[in-house]
């Protein structure tokens, strides 16, 4: 299996070509922009929380590479409908997977797809591409909570 196959395995390409939750939200609880300083890729994330702290809706507008777009797409599926606490756990797990050398992260069944991104670790420069949506989401959650607290 060539590296190219590895990196662009079907799951990633599927999400790249048909990104889930692509678009925007009118009355979002939070709208945040993320940028990858190394390549300039940008991304806007819209988040809507219920008063009880569930992620009611999430949308992304990205002009990124396949990794970036696919990562955002998979993320949106993984967190939609979850509680903020659970979303933060997933973010934590994902970042551990991407940033730990020999990680032992295991994603449960419905999050299994995320493991497709583990292959990106072979390309250190692109880890940032994969992390961008997740870091933006962290910021979004923070912003939405502050807005709710007011």
């Amino acid at each position, binding site marked *: 299996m060539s590296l190219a*196959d590895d990196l662009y395995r079907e799951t990633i390409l599927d999400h790249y070509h048909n990104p889930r939750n692509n678009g925007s939200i009118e009355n979002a609880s939070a709208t945040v922009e993320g940028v990858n300083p*190394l*390549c300039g*890729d940008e991304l806007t994330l819209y988040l809507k929380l219920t008063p009880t702290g569930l992620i009611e809706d999430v949308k992304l507008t990205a002009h*990124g590479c396949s990794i970036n777009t696919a990562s955002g797409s998979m993320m949106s599926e993984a967190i939609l409908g979850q509680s903020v606490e659970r979303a933060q756990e997933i973010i934590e797990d994902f970042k551990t997977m991407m940033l730990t050398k020999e990680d032992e992260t295991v994603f449960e069944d419905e999050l299994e797809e995320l493991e497709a991104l583990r292959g990106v670790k072979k390309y250190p420069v692109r880890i940032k591409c994969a992390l961008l949506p997740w870091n933006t989401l962290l910021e979004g959650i923070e912003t939405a909570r502050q807005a709710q607290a007011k």
Partner: protein
Amino acid sequence: MSSSVEFDVEKIRRDFPILDRVIEGKRLVYLDNAATSQKPSQVIKAITNYYEQYNANVHRGIHTLSEEATVAYEAVRETVREFIGAEETCEIIFTRNTTEAINLVAYSWGKQNVLPGDEIVLSPMEHHSNLVPWQQLAAEREAKLVYLDLTEDGQINMETAAQLIGPKTRLVAITQMSNVFGTINPVKELAHLAHKNNAIILVDGAQGIPHLKTSVADLECDFYAFSLHKMLGPTGVGILWGKKTLLEAMPPFMFGGDMISSVHRDKTKFNELPWKFEAGTPNVADVIASGVAVDYLNNVGMDNVRAHEIAITRYAIEKLSEIKDIVIYGPLDATKRGGVVSFNINGLHPHDLGQILSDNGVAIRAGHHCCQPLMKDLKVMGTARASFYIYNTLEEVDLLLAALKEAEKVMGHVACR
């Protein structure tokens, strides 16, 4: 200085050990020369030889090693002076890179000469290194940045330039050659416009000098900045050239050893040019090796370098144009530009392209090339960029094309969403 030796790319390639590098089972095709060039063994050996034979701190040492190191270090100034057609050796100042050279001017000349209301004229194709220092200076001094207009194919619109450069202009800062478009800018005409308005002109030669026979006297510029690592030299050496009268009137930039004439507890007399601008222990080994890099280019002959690059660029543009959905930026006439070809293939993100090419042994660059404002003008996040140098061959262009085909296959080339 130019050479009558014939240009033999295979002979040249043998001087570059890295070209034997194998990546993922394929021989390296290095097409990222606008980022940094590879180094011939002559340059690498100059470094080894320095450390094995005569490494010492320069200027103040009286022992043999220090004298040898000082003579070799100072001799490079003369080599560089001749290469860029400058008048005086003391006008050659060693810095870390182009970026530091430009910052030196922004700090030292800028703070003395740019006043509120003054205008600094730039082109929209400037590298961040020739943009952010002026942006910061303008903000600090309440001066204004003025951007020139570009034509559709990435050349400077000289008609509006004649209006935009005016009596309020203090400085025109312009790249000799664009690292995105490859455009070779009409520096001399811009210099005339600047001088007519009592402004000065700084030329960013980072992309120009490695590829074009250059004379600062012919360009009629006032400052000229470049990096040796883009022209066969080691990392860690840049040059600032400036007109002696300007440099002499400028205050020092960094303070410390070597740049002083005498130090008292409460005051300091500064050294003369060029040392006034070189504080602390310089990058001795790499400066010496930089001289060898210039010698190497002189031996090849800059006319030969240019001719080779025109040939390879013409071929590359021709081949790339055959790709469906490709956009090639900058002038398409290879004689109007250097060997830097930026492009986008619709539906393929440059990052993905770059990655898959790399997996096929082909090194190109993908991204904003430190020209974010230009990317915004072009309405793209980035481009893919192949850039050539003396050791690249037409066959390598074919390998680039083959790898691009492979990338389209892997990514399942679809039209941009």
